[in-house]
């Protein structure tokens, strides 16, 4: 289980900004998130970056209860 942080369009599609989701890797946590939030969220994940604890991560990266998996869609600041 890990904390997930959902930002911008990912937050909107999920309906929540943070959550707790089961999984032993980034890919498993995100798969759980897609099951929970549905296809709109899935289409946003497809174009998003996945970070763990503030740094870019790979799908097979192991995560535990103290880790935070963030979903970052393309940005539009400034």
């Amino acid at each position, binding site marked *: 289980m890990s904390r997930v*942080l959902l*930002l*911008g*369009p990912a*937050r*909107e599609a999920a309906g929540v900004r943070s959550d707790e989701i089961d999984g032993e890797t980034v890919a498993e946590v995100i798969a759980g998130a897609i099951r929970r939030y549905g296809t709109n969220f899935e289409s946003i994940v497809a174009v998003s*970056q996945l970070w763990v604890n*503030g740094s*870019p991560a790979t799908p097979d990266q192991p995560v535990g209860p103290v880790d935070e998996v*963030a979903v*970052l*869609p*393309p*940005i*539009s*600041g*400034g």
Partner: protein
Amino acid sequence: MQAERSSDWVAISPSALATDELVTWATRPECGAVVTFCGTARSTSATRDDIVELEYETDVELAERRTLDVVAAARARWPEIQALAVHHRIGTVHLAEPAVVVVVAAPHRHEAFEAARFCIDAVKRTVPMWKREVWPDGSAWSGEAMDIVDVDDL
């Protein structure tokens, strides 16, 4: 906003940006050049011309850390910089209000211009931030979004 004593000043905050306060803070007798960039909310985007306000959303901690990375990269490229502020507002920003302000003070203008331009370009490419365009009867995420890149890759 409370000014940092040091010569870097990063803030991600819902407060209105006080450009004049940042310019005053950056200006110092050993510098001959202060360059300021204000990115202001405009009525027109790639898809609409009736925007009435913008809404910016982020995770403040992530955004601050990435903005500090931009500042560090600018200082590494232009060690002459004496003062550097990057402030990004979040939440609602009305038309013509600044959403982001960059201020660079340096002994000479070349470095001040180059560093200010680098900082705003890098903020837009590297700092997690999402802009929603609001018009009279609706709103949508900006269609001008870009994949996040690392400042070291710029």
